[in-house]
């Protein structure tokens, strides 16, 4: 075992028990890092800590082993206080091979701990990671604590009694590492052992080998503590509202929210989807929920997925489709038909980096223009955005409600970060949600006449299921005549119908905008939407602790906007809008509210870091007494990026995730 201790200045701060820790597991795509991270997350949640995670993996399914672009990482931030983000920089990095070390080391906090599997530091792997000299030998790790030893060999040793070949034995390496991590953070192993026994129910030998590896890693912690930098750390449970909790990812939450929404509407749900990263997981979840009246349809393409969902809505079910940017683009024409025929539909967009194929597995918020404006003709569609994995649940219910009450397609925006990230979630009581049962039209609605486009007080037309006696009528994409819905191209009719469609969406009852954190007036409002919630929340909190007059306003209803938003923003001298795009929501707010908003934009495929926001906020307080914010320096160390070797250009024909 090789260990090094970081060179520290003599005046190093005393070791106070941390209230939060950031750990990153990094390894080859085939090392099972996402699984390790997921199970560590569960253990963290069961220990009662608050947490946020950030899975970061390559677009390639089986990238060549040991390469820089094949590195898969999972970061978790957990603590005894409220946790809002996955953390800027890790305190602990587990690097399973040289490539993982190279692509992740620079993010590690100075003085942080790096755990290295020397068994993978072969000449060949060092070459693949483009190391000329092993970093273990050249002193380049001096500013960190290093715990380097042969995890591979120890794993093989631990699972020897089960008679597995070396290749199979090494598959348990992630469990060995997880065992060590569980020791480090004083965790109970039993839930993991239960999980392994359940997962490998039909392969008891594999289960036993993995459990042995887990136990061996755990036992190793004791040894390492005596001789090296490793310390056992206990993080107390976070103070949380009483109740039942579980962990949830955005993809799970959207599926559960849609099921709940359909139930509250009293409708069966029809889900039309087509495989696309990172939206496919919604289809995978819903396909297992058929007992809730869910029909899933994997269509031949994105267009057919939405068209089938519209067909199902027409026939009286709640039609839902989901995709990511490129697929949403293909659905555009059908969305226009749903607007014209005024049928309910929920469209979920798990945004990813664009344009075109872009960054399939990385996060971005750059489909806002597409959601608000991206259709031919005047085709207004309400847009709702979710701010965290747990929030998606409520947003999905809200999308269903608006769709059926206003007879309109609704777009729900999430993103790759929300879809994959996990957080603790207080399990809601379904009975606490107000049902919104759908009433289909059963008889003629104007004496002896049927008027399929007669509007109610909300501007919505009746929903009429084919199969209902005596209500036969035709709908379609050609402009509809007022009330009758017959074809009518006349100028005055098109004017009336365009106005009516717009008025209906403009009139949707949107709750007044609340201030998420801080006062209702002040020097600076930081306005966000979507998954930037966590870092903005934390940065605004930092600033407020310094006494700065900053508030966090997080907008859920992108279209139509809350009616009071303009008035609320007028109470602040400045408005700063951090977005993971080039300033799309800023443009919308400037247009709609004439607000002089500034943009802070980031399109690296990575979420905002708190330090980046700290610095941006500080700029508004330069020269203001008591402001120390101006001294904050952004941590420019990113999670893996193309520059850090995530894609070294040698990638060929490995098949991008679509």
């Amino acid at each position, binding site marked *: 075992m090789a260990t090094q201790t970081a060179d520290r200045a003599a005046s190093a701060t005393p070791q106070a028990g941390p209230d939060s820790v950031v750990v990153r597991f990094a390894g080859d795509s085939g090392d099972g890092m996402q699984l390790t991270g997921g199970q560590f997350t*569960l253990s963290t*949640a*069961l220990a*009662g800590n608050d947490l946020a995670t950030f899975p970061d993996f390559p677009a390639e399914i089986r990238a060549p082993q040991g390469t820089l672009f094949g590195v898969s990482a999972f970061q978790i931030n957990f603590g005894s206080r409220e946790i809002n983000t996955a953390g800027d920089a890790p305190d602990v990095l587990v690097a399973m091979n040289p490539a993982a070390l190279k692509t992740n080391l620079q993010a590690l906090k100075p003085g942080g701990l790096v755990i290295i599997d020397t068994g993978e530091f072969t000449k060949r792997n060092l070459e693949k990671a483009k190391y000329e000299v092993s970093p273990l030998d050249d002193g380049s790790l001096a500013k960190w604590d290093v715990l380097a030893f042969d995890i591979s060999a120890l794993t093989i040793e631990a699972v020897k009694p089960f008679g597995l070949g070396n290749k199979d034995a090494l598959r348990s390496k992630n469990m060995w590492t997880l065992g060590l991590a569980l020791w480090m953070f004083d965790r109970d192993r039993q*839930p993991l052992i239960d999980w392994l026994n359940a997962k490998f129910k039909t392969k008891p030998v594999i289960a036993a080998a993995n459990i042995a590896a887990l136990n061996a890693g755990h036992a190793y912690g004791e040894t390492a503590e005596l001789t090296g930098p490793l310390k056992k750390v206990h993080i107390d*449970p976070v103070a*949380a*509202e*009483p109740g*039942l*909790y*579980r*962990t949830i990812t955005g993809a799970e939450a959207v599926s*559960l929210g849609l099921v*709940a929404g359909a139930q509250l509407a009293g409708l*069966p749900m*029809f889900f*039309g989807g087509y495989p696309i990263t990172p939206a496919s997981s919604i289809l995978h979840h819903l396909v*297992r*929920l*058929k*007992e*809730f009246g869910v*029909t899933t*349809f994997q*269509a*031949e393409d994105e*267009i*057919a*997925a939405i*068209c*089938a*969902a*519209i*067909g*199902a*809505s*027409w*026939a*009286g079910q709640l039609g839902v489709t989901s995709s990511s940017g490129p697929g949403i683009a293909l659905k555009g*024409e*059908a969305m226009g*038909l749903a607007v014209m025929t005024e049928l309910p539909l929920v469209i979920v967009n798990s945004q990813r980096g664009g344009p075109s194929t872009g960054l399939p597995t990385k996060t971005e918020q750059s489909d806002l223009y597409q959601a608000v404006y991206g259709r031919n003709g005047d085709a207004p569609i309400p847009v709702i955005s979710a701010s965290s994995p747990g929030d998606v649940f409520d947003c999905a219910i809200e999308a269903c409600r608006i769709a059926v009450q206003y007879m309109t397609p609704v777009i729900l925006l999430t993103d790759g970060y929300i879809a994959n990230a996990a957080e603790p979630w207080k*399990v809601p*009581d*379904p*009975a606490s949600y107000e049902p919104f049962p759908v009433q289909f039209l059963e008889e003629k609605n104007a004496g002896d006449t049927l008027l399929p486009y007669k509007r109610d007080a909300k501007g919505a037309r009746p929903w009429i*299921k*084919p*199969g209902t006696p*005596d209500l*036969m*009528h*035709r*709908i*379609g*994409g*050609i402009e509809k005549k007022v009330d009758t819905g*017959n*074809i009518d191209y006349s100028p005055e009719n098109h004017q009336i119908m365009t106005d009516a469609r717009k008025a209906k969406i403009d009139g949707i009852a949107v709750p007044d905008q609340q201030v998420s954190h801080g006062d209702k007036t002040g020097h600076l409002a930081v306005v966000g939407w979507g998954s930037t919630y966590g870092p903005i929340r934390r940065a605004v909190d930092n600033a407020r602790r310094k006494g700065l007059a900053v508030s966090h306003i997080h907008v859920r209803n992108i279209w139509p906007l809350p009616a009071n938003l303009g008035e609320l923003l007028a109470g602040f001298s400045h408005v700063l809008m951090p977005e993971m795009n080039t300033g799309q929501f800023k443009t919308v707010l400037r247009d709609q509210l004439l607000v002089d908003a500034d943009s802070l934009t980031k399109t690296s495929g990575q979420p905002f870091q708190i330090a980046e926001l700290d610095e941006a906020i500080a700029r508004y307080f330069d020269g203001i007494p008591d402001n120390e914010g101006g001294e904050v320096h952004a941590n420019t160390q990113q999670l893996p990026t193309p520059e850090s070797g995530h894609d070294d250009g040698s990638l060929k024909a490995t098949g991008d995730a679509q």
Partner: protein
Amino acid sequence: MNEMTKIETTLKDWETDQEVRWCPGCGDYAILKAVQRTLPQLGCDPAKTVFISGIGCSSRFPYYMETYGFHTIHGRAPAFATGAKLANPELDVWLVTGDGDGLSIGGNHMMHVLRRNVNMQIMLFNNEIYGLTKGQYSPTSRIGTKSPSTPIGSVDRPANPCAFALGAGARFVARGFDVSKNLPDVLKAAHAHQGAAFIEIFQNCIVYNKDVFDAFAAPKGADDHQLWLADGEPMLFGSEKTGGVKGIALDRDLLELKVVDVVDGDWQAAGVLVHNVRNRSIAHMLIEAPFGPFPMALGVIYDDPRPTYESAVVEERAKSSEGKSANLAKLLAKGQTWTVEDTGGHPA
């Protein structure tokens, strides 16, 4: 179609109050009348009947049928119809499309609705031209077709709709033409078929592609140029008046069809094939047989049902729901959970 209770209607019950807006003399009128005449004979219920179409001249069809109708977007009608049928398998679904809508922009969806075998009648009006956009050549236009987009004649090879359908896995393939008195019988057979029933209807576009099917569809010479197929009957055409009765036989060495003369009505001696609607290989040959050397094969070419998609989906859904209850509270609390106890007073 589905098993249904027959109800009494007349042709009038299937007409809407909408003015029909096809060009005077368009073949679509004849098809509309054939459908409106056939549905009462089948005892169909207008409230349970739906017509779904894409975009094009043919796709205006639903507006003229007193049923539920959905005029959708270009090429995508099969996808809408699939969603509607899965949502309510009780609906009797008719799909109306054209050669451009169904085989060009919507070729992909056509392939998949056929391979999935969603239970519906698919009427593809083939006029070998884009009519609604004023006459461009279509994927079924013959080489050399002059049009605004091919002023000296098209150069690409046309698609054969029935060959496409059969290749995509259709279990019912039939052909008819707009003014044929046999069209209602073809529609009835399609309706009786459980599964996706594909009907190519040759349709005369009198404005942009006038009389392009006259070689076989014109009354004059019809006997010689039309081979009307009937299950269990010999494949005979022609007549004594027009130069002799002929039949279709199989050249067993070359494995292809050939035309043979039938002398004194003895078709067996001439080796004429008896039509078997379940014979997929012969169906392929009939569809591919070039018009000219061969007559145009019309009627039900292939009809061999398989379980429908929607029945499989319903069955699968029942199977995967077996023993499970739709308890949302339980679902939300699924997996590993933990409880935070109330220690009095909410923490910050």
